[in-house]
């Protein structure tokens, strides 16, 4: 009996606690992380609670990532004053190369370096780009794997909806 209670309790607690390797699932709490930006500043995702956050994973060798970044830059320009925060997580091993690309793509939002791939593992990243939309409560509202032309319209619609909440 006692064992059954213990097993049930463990089942409940393990269901309640986000596992260390929890991926970003729609409706779930966004996995928190802290990374260093290209400028050397440390940023933690949970410190943006209260804002609508778009987390974008990319790498310099990913061509659709570069295409997507141009659309994201437009969105950021337009909605940052309304409370949209954009964080890009770069997965390159070489920070210099990433910084060079960020400069060429004119990325105006923070570029976080995940050289150790800790955050990529945390989000169970399988392909690039991956974009995660987080609401003001820290809940994942949308996960966009990959990017194709026209996807930015879906981003826009979702972001506008979240900013109004």
């Amino acid at each position, binding site marked *: 009996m006692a064992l059954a209670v*213990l097993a049930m*309790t*463990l089942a*409940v*607690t393990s269901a*309640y*606690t986000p596992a260390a390797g929890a991926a970003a699932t729609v409706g779930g709490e966004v996995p928190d992380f*802290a*990374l*260093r930006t290209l400028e050397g*500043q*440390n*940023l*933690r995702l949970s*410190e943006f609670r209260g804002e609508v956050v778009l987390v974008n994973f990319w790498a310099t060798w990913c061509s659709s990532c570069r295409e997507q970044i141009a659309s994201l830059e437009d969105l950021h320009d337009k909605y940052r004053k309304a409370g949209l925060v954009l964080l890009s997580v770069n997965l390159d091993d070489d920070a210099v190369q990433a910084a060079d690309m960020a400069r060429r793509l004119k990325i105006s939002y923070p570029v976080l370096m995940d050289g150790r791939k*800790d955050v990529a593992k945390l989000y169970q990243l399988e392909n690039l780009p991956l974009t995660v939309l987080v609401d003001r409560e820290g809940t994942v509202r949308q996960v966009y794997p990959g990017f194709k032309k026209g996807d930015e319209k879906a981003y826009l619609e979702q972001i506008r909806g979240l900013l109004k909440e």
Partner: protein
Amino acid sequence: MAKDLAGGTAMGRVRRWVPLQALFLVLLWAAAPAGADSASAASAKAGQNAAPAVATSGGSSATPPSEPPPSATPSGDTPPAAADFKTIDQDVQGLKKEVLDLNRDLFVLEEELLFPANTQVAVFVSMDVGTFFGLDSVTLKMDNKEVTNYLYTEREAEALLKGGVQRVYLGNLKVGSHELVALFTGKGPHERDYRRGATLNFSKSVGAKYIELKISDRAVREQPEFEVKEWE
């Protein structure tokens, strides 16, 4: 006509004063019953106003502290839909409180189950002054295995300087001797990149073990000091 609008003529002044006087009288009439209990109409109105306030204070346990105070609208005038809405709102607040309580209980239970006291090891970080060191990250190695690598944001470092103590690691260790290596990185004196390690060999017995990594300033040498100490 232009003079009238500007209030230049006597007629214009009268026209401007009449509505003002009327407004003043209305205000006076409205204020008088509230202040004086003698008038029957006033006492009836005051009674109506007081009723919801008394009911609210009596039922404080069901009312969350964040709820706004009841409006001055007499309870008799409250439409049924609004009353229903209020009840639902109270129910939601109650449910939220219960969820928070349950969350707390589960958190405590989880810690007790996953990190029993006889194997538990917790490592804390604290900072004193911080003139000669700006904390950037702490890496912990337990028995030559990296167990945590924590990056500090500006806000977190500030919180530590204000007296905060952060639990940077919680894990399980078997009874016996162990080695803890803490690696601190940050900005040292004159804004130079600073990297320093500190080692502690400790013995884990039955019962929880608490270790503190204390960063303080050594004013004489104008250098930061890193101390690893065990809590008794």
